[in-house]
C-alpha cells in the first residue's frame, strides 16, 4: 500500500517536472530558430522551419504534442545534431550511471568505515583527526580534488590516464582504468558527509538502553555493533545517502567536464550552451527520472530498515 502510494507520487512528480521544464524553456527570451539561422535569415525559411519543428502552434498544443511523443518514447530531435535525443541519451546514460555508481560505492564504503571507526573511538585523537579530515572533504570542490588527482596520478606518476573514456564493450580493464580518478573525485566530498552522519547517528544509538543491555550481557564490541547498533543507526544514514544522490548527479556534470567523459552531464551542458531546447528538456527529464527513481529506492530501504513504516503506524519522523 505504502509502495503503491510512493509509485503514484513519483509519477505525479515526473509529470509536474516535465510541465515546469517545458513551459520554462518556452518562456525564455531568445528564439532558437533565429539564433540557429543567424546570418542566413530569410522570412520564408524561418516560417518553414518554425512549422517544421511545430513551434508555430499555440504553446498548450505544443505541450500536449510533446507530452504524447514523450509517452511514446520520443523526446524529439536535437536542434544541433538532428539526431533523436532519446537515442543520444540512452547511449550516454550507462556512462554516467557507471560513474555515479562507482562514486557511490566508494563514498559509502569510505564514509561508513571512517564514521564507525570515529564513533568507536569517540573523542580520541583518531576521532578528532577524522572529523577535521571530513571538514576538508566537505570544503573540497570535486573539480579541485579531481585536478589534484590528475596532476599526481596521471601526469607525474602516470598510474591512470588523465582523461577520456573507453567503452565497456571495447575493453573492461581500460574502462575501469579510466573511471578510477573520476569516481574518486566525485565520491570523496560525499564520503565526508556520510562519515559525519554515520558517526553522529551511531553515537546517538550508543546512548540507548538496549545497547547498554547488550554490553552488560557481555557481547563483544563487534556483536553489539553489527547485531544491535548498526541497523538502527542506518536509518538516518540511508536518508543522507539518498540525499547524496542529488549531489552525485550534480557533481557528475562537473566531473564529466573535468575528465572529458561523454556522459549525460556533458550532453546537458552542451545543450544548454547551444540553446538546444529539446536537448535541455530531455536532459532535465532524464535527471528528474533518475532522481525520482533513486528516492523511491531510498523509501523502499526504509521499509526494510524500519518495520514501523512497513506496518503503516506513524513512527516516522517529520
Amino acid at each position, binding site marked *: 500500500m505504502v509502495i503503491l502510494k510512493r509509485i503514484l507520487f513519483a509519477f505525479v512528480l515526473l509529470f509536474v517536472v516535465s510541465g515546469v521544464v517545458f513551459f520554462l524553456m518556452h518562456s525564455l527570451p531568445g528564439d532558437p530558430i533565429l539564433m540557429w539561422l543567424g546570418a542566413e535569415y530569410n522570412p520564408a525559411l524561418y516560417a518553414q522551419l518554425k512549422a517544421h519543428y511545430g513551434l508555430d502552434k499555440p504553446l498548450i498544443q505544443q505541450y500536449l504534442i510533446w507530452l504524447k511523443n514523450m509517452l511514446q518514447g520520443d523526446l524529439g530531435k536535437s536542434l544541433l545534431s538532428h539526431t533523436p535525443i532519446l537515442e543520444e541519451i540512452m547511449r550516454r546514460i550507462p556512462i554516467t550511471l557507471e560513474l555515479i555508481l562507482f562514486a557511490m560505492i566508494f563514498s559509502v564504503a569510505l564514509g561508513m568505515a571512517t564514521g564507525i571507526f570515529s564513533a568507536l573511538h569517540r573523542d580520541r585523537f583518531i576521532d578528532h583527526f577524522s572529523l577535521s579530515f571530513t*571538514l576538508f572533504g566537505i570544503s*573540497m570542490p570535486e*573539480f579541485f580534488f579531481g585536478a589534484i588527482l*590528475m*596532476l599526481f596520478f596521471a*601526469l607525474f606518476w602516470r598510474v591512470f590516464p588523465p582523461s577520456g573514456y573507453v567503452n565497456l564493450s571495447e575493453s573492461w580493464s581500460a574502462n575501469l582504468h579510466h573511471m578510477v580518478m573520476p569516481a574518486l573525485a566525485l565520491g570523496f566530498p560525499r564520503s565526508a558527509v556520510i562519515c559525519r552522519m554515520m558517526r553522529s547517528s551511531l553515537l546517538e544509538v550508543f546512548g540507548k538502553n538496549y545497547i547498554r543491555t547488550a554490553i552488560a550481557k557481555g557481547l563483544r564490541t563487534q556483536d553489539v555493533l553489527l547485531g544491535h547498533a548498526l541497523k538502527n543507526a542506518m536509518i538516518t544514514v540511508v536518508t543522507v545517502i539518498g540525499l547524496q*544522490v*542529488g549531489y552525485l*548527479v550534480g557533481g557528475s556534470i562537473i566531473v564529466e567536464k573535468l575528465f572529458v567523459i561523454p556522459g549525460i552531464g556533458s550532453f546537458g551542458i552542451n545543450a*544548454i550552451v547551444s540553446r538546444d531546447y529539446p536537448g535541455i528538456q530531455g536532459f532535465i527529464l532524464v535527471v528528474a527520472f533518475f532522481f525520482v527513481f533513486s528516492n523511491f529506492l531510498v523509501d523502499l530501504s526504509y521499509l526494510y530498515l524500519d518495520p514501523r513504516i512497513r506496518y503503516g503506524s506513524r513512527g516516522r519522523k517529520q
Partner: protein
Amino acid sequence: MAVDTYRPIWRDLIASKKAMFGLAIIATLTITSIFAGSIAYQSPEKMDIVSTFHAPGTAFLLGTDNYGRDVLSRLIYGGRVSIIVGVGAAVLGVILGIPLGLFSGYFGGLADNIISRFLEVIMPFPTILIAILITFAAGASQWTVIVAIGIVLMPFFARLVRGNVYSIKENQFVEAARGVGSSHLRIVFVHILPHCGAPVIIMASLCVAFSILTEAALSFLGLGVPPPTPTWGGDLQAGIKYLEFAPWVTLSPGFAIMLSVLGFNLFGDGLRDALHTEQSFIY
C-alpha cells in the same frame, strides 16, 4: 533561552579554536577583497606575452598564466566575486526563506502542507542543476548567479525556521502575547523570530560556504560570471590544459576556494558547538 546565555556563548565562541581559525580566514578573505585595488600589485587583466607561464618566484609570487597574467592578482580580484556571491546568496536565501518558514510554521494547516510538500520535492533536486538553469534563463552575470544560488538556498532556511517556529509557538510567552491582543504579525516578528536567530546564523555561515562552492562550480562549467572578470572557478578551469607544466595556474585558485569554504564551514561548526545545538550540514 538564548537571551540569558548570551555572554557564555560569546566566550565559548572565542575559546573555540575552530571558530577563530575560520574567522581568521573569513577576515583575510574579506579584507583582501575590499582592498583588492591596493593589495594586488598588478591588474588582474594585464597581459604580458613575454612572461607567460612564469613559475612562482620573486617576480610573480604565484606565477603567471597562459596570457602572462599574474595569478596572485587574479586570485585577489577573484575573491571579490566569491565573497560577494557567497554572502549575497546566503542573505537572499535568508530573506526569501524566513518569511516562508515563519508563515508556514506559525499558521500551519493547508498552506503549511502545500509549502512543506513543495520544499520536500525541490530540496533534494541537484542544486547545481537548478542554479545552472536559472543563470541560463536569466543570462549569466554576478547578480543572476546570486539570485540563482539564493533561490536554491531558500528551502533550507524555510525548513529550518518552520521547524523552530513549530516548537517556539507552543511557549507561554506566545500565548501571553496573544492574550494581550498582539497581532499575528507582531507575535511572529517580535516574539518568535528572535528565537530563530541562532540556528539561522549557523545555517547562514554554512550556506555561504555552500554558495562559494556552487559559484566556483558554475564558473568552472563556464556558466557563471562571464570573463574578463576573474573568478576562481573559471581560472581553475582555464588552467587544466596546462596542468602538467604550469600546475600553479590551477592549484592556486583551487586552494583559494577550498580555504575560504573551509573558513565558513569552520566558523559555522564552531558556532554550533558554542551554542550546543545539533544541526547538521546542509550538504
